């Protein structure tokens, strides 16, 4: 048994490593092409140059400052928009009345690309934090809303009937049956909204900001610091991946019971 576990873990490590093979290979190729002079430094600086720029920026504290500002914006937008979406998803999933009065409105708003609201948002909020918070919250709202609603409405009605017959109070029924049953779907919504969260934030910061990664990239463009621009883009990619990894870990922890996750978490005992 233990031997099998060891072998399994070895395989897992190898598999986790293999995910990064292609990105690393691309970077090596890029470095080689730059060194060979096939890619001009003022078009696309070599990875080593970008790394060097990153190191300098890190030492001056500037990079961390911008990353911190961006992360804070992203997370606060996610929390605000996500909670509202979660709330409406639950309410409309449980209550016919609530669904009748709000769902049509929400579906209409959903079909307006939220980034198209940027001019209006700037007029309303200026270029302050509220503008970014509003846009990110609006962007993450819909995936979470729709998937929560879907999750609640597709909870096995037989389980709900069982809960009723076994005398569960409405609250117990919600906590023990409806919410856990909707959770897989809610996680799908969360992972979708993480992607939208970064996208929205970057666009918003690129257009108008006084700090943050998008601002850093736009400043660098003004001074033709291509390495910093590329650095910002790479950091976006890494942050996006990081958010996805965190969401996956949460998912695995919360959905241990799900047959699809049992292999990854090992023996449920």
């Amino acid at each position, binding site marked *: 048994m233990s031997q099998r576990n060891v072998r399994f873990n070895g395989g897992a490590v190898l598999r986790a490593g293999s995910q990064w093979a292609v990105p690393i290979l691309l970077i090596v190729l890029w470095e080689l092409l730059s060194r060979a002079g096939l890619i001009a430094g003022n078009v696309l600086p070599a990875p080593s140059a970008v790394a060097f720029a990153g190191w300098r920026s890190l030492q001056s504290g500037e990079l961390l400052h911008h990353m911190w500002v961006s992360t804070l914006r992203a997370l606060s937008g996610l929390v605000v928009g996500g909670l509202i979406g979660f709330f409406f998803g639950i309410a409309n999933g449980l209550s016919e009345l609530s669904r009748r009065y709000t769902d049509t409105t929400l579906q209409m708003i959903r079909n307006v690309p939220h980034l198209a609201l940027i001019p209006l948002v700037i007029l309303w909020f200026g270029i302050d934090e509220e503008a970014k918070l509003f846009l990110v919250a609006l962007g993450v709202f819909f995936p979470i809303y729709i998937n929560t609603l879907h999750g609640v409405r597709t909870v096995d009605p*037989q389980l709900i009937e069982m809960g009723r017959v076994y005398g569960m109070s409405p609250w117990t029924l919600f906590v023990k049956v409806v919410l856990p049953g909707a959770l897989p779907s809610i996680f799908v919504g969360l992972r979708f909204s993480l992607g939208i969260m970064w996208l929205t934030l970057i666009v918003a910061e690129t257009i108008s900001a006084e700090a943050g990664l998008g601002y850093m990239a736009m400043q660098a463009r003004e001074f033709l610091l291509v390495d910093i621009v590329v650095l910002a883009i790479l950091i976006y990619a890494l942050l996006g991946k990081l958010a996805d990894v965190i969401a996956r870990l949460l998912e695995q922890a919360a959905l241990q019971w799900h047959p699809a996750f049992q292999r990854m978490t090992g023996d449920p005992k």
Partner: protein
Amino acid sequence: MSLSAARDARVIEDEPVHHPEKSGGVPLVLRGVTRRFGEKRVLDNLDLHIRAGQFVAVVGKSGCGKSTLLRLLVGLDKPSSGFIDVGTGEGGNPARIMFQEPRLLPWQRVLANVEVGLPPEVKGARRHAIARAILAEVGLEDRAGEWPSVLSGGQKQRVALARALASRPRFLALDEPLGALDALTRIEMQGLLERVWLEQKFTAVLVTHDVSEALALADRVILIDAGHVALDLNVPFPRPRRRGSAEVAHLEGQILDRLFGTEREAPANAHQRLPAH
């Protein structure tokens, strides 16, 4: 709830289950019960009296109203007219139902699924202890920490039985709980059902398609046809019953004849067999 609490406390002490009352069951009375779905009368002016502690099997073709009858008895549905009295008894222990599907919560481990059957007043360590004791009664105490998804169909149904028994119900409704199991597991489960019923003497109403299952378990078999009681037979055989004995086969023939009308060949056989008794 003091009575049930006292009973529960005894479970912890791990004594064999027996009740202070002569019978752990409640009587069921239906008077003039009609249930309509639109124009169709699924149950039509039904009168039925089931003695406390009796094991009754209800058989009938699909759509004859037998499941509707069960749903009315456990309060999942209300009659269009008529009167139903499921005596709650002093303990007020609720009626419980076992469905055709196990209906376990996949996100709760086996033990927590059994605890679903306990009233919310029972808390903490006592809750676990009672659930564990009942799980042991159905022979699954070693699976308490598993997820339901790793259990076999028969094991899941045993967990569902433990959940139904957790609150020591005085009336247990069984909606074809063994219908989806393979033949061998089904016989095993029939034995288990009979054992817990003999121990606890709750009133049991089993809805089934399987006439031989009805005869293996029940004191009384009721055949429902087009919303009426078409046949009401006592099954006087001693327990444990031997499968495939001549008397059982005779009764089975009688029920099947009534189910499929008189055109079948079986009536001739049944008549031939009759003089032998």
